[in-house]
């Protein structure tokens, strides 16, 4: 593994008496794709939210690029270089594609010291980004509410590819995508990783995990139940880790 980008040390999260995370430790290297697997309710989404700044952990610590890191808000995580694609899409359907793409990062020019949206510049950037990803959307000025689920997810994916950053978290990014778009999405992930960006992808689909990930981390009941290189394990072994037939921390099953 290359130099670690993000290290989690014994991160926990309690909701009252319920322990959603009972101590998660793992790390992600630069340019590495980690697939995060686990059954429903294992704590995957909670973990993503903690890294992305939506939730604060109850205890434990995180190191980002070797420094102590805790994002109180998504804005802080973003400033540090962490991009997130959430399971429930984060689009404002009442505005157009361009506005969504640039949400919170609008290109402006100053007129009399007042920032004015530079629509033309933004539209050009979005057009280029979508075209290079092979996403076809009839008009970038249509409000997102009029687009299909697949188109919406494509916007989200293109958005993270464009903004990049240092670490990308994907919470079931392909749920609404078709076969061809999923293939393209997986390619995108590889591309992003090749630029030296760390990628964490949560998925339910074993095949996707094995297609794209360098390493597979399995979470069960709030702890890491397995952390193995992809080429040293098999789907069956991983399923055993998810369901709990293998002991926590067990190595490759062959």
């Amino acid at each position, binding site marked *: 593994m290359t130099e670690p980008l993000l290290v989690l040390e014994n991160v926990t999260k309690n909701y009252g008496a319920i322990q959603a995370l009972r101590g998660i430790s793992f790390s992600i290297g630069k340019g590495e794709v980690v697939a995060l697997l686990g059954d429903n309710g294992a704590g995957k989404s909670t973990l993503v939210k903690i890294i992305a700044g939506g939730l604060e952990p109850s205890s434990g610590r995180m190191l980002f690029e070797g420094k102590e890191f805790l994002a109180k808000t998504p*804005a802080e995580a*973003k400033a540090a270089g962490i991009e997130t694609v959430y399971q429930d899409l984060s689009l*404002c359907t*009442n*505005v157009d594609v361009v506005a969504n793409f640039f*949400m*919170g990062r609008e290109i402006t020019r100053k007129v009399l010291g007042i920032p004015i*949206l530079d629509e033309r510049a933004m539209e050009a950037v979005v057009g280029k980004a979508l075209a290079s990803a092979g996403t076809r959307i009839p008009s970038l000025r249509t409000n997102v509410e*009029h687009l299909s689920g697949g188109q919406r997810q494509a916007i989200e994916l293109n958005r993270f590819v464009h903004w990049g950053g240092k670490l990308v978290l994907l919470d079931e990014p392909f749920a609404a995508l078709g076969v061809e778009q999923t293939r393209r999405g997986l390619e995108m992930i590889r591309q992003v990783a090749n630029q030296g960006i760390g990628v964490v992808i949560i998925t339910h689909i074993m095949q996707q995990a094995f297609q794209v990930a360098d390493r597979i981390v399995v979470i069960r009941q709030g702890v890491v139940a397995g952390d193995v290189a992809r080429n040293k394990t098999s789907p069956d072994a991983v399923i055993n880790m998810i369901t709990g037939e293998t002991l926590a921390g067990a190595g490759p099953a062959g």
Partner: protein
Amino acid sequence: MNPRSRKALEFVLDNLVWFMLVFVLIVFSIFVPNYFQLGIFANIIEASSVLGVMSIGLALVIIAGHMDLSVESVAALSAMTVGILFCSSGIGLGIQLSPQWLMVPVSLLAALAVGGIVGALNGFLVVKLKMSAFIITLASYIWVRGLVLVISGGRSAQDLAPSIRWFAIQRLIGLPLTAWIAISCFVISSLVMAKTPFGRHLMMIGGNETATFRAGIRVNRNLVIAFVLAGAIAGLAGWLLAIRTSGATANLGTGLLFNAFAAVVIGGVSLKGGVGTLPGVYAGVLLLSSINTAINLMGLPANFTQVIHGLLVLAAVLLDAFKQTIRQRLA
């Protein structure tokens, strides 16, 4: 449908309320005697200045997905503050400043500050306590009006200082300056909403607050600013109201809130947030005002206005639903 006619149709849908306004004006001009006069049209614009300004603030907050019921009471409090400070009879203190014109910025600042403070309080409570803006501002609607009664003792202030009154008397191209103030408010706020990141962010917060938070937009800060703006703009409306009536009474502006709501809804702003433009709201305000004028000219009892406004709001909501279906078919 070819792109051209599609674009034309979208343009009509986006500006439907303006077309309605033109349609109503034409109908009234034909059927209501003496309606078609420049003086009448000027009067329509003039009569809508206070309501117009108040509707801007309300629209901003509603577009951001919240609600401000306190605008009417805030306007009354600002008007009463200006009245008490600068009126010479009734409960007015009749403060004189020299030079005379200094009273204009001072009274304006007082009105804006009163509104801004109430707005800041509303915004703070909504954002920090995460309580429904409806309840918080309903409370403000009540206690601010109560405060007006307390500071006035139920009495009124008359004879506003002439240098402030000047704005209602001095005319520019047939319209008093107060009307121009309202128009420039609409122009400025429309530009802010359409062209600046702040306006864009308010719109997106109204659409999906979670998404904007995740995207790193400072949602709370933007919302507090929106509430402060709504309060300050209501304060400005109160200043205009004091000028218009040359003073202030304890029940000044009662009922304006519902007209403002009507204007905002007719103007195409969705109460669910995230939808609507300010030029549309201005058209809504003008539409209400032209109907009022027609009712006056026809000599109908003024009580009819309320019935018609109510029906108009219903029509606006139905129209909005209809627009949605057309748009969905377009996409």
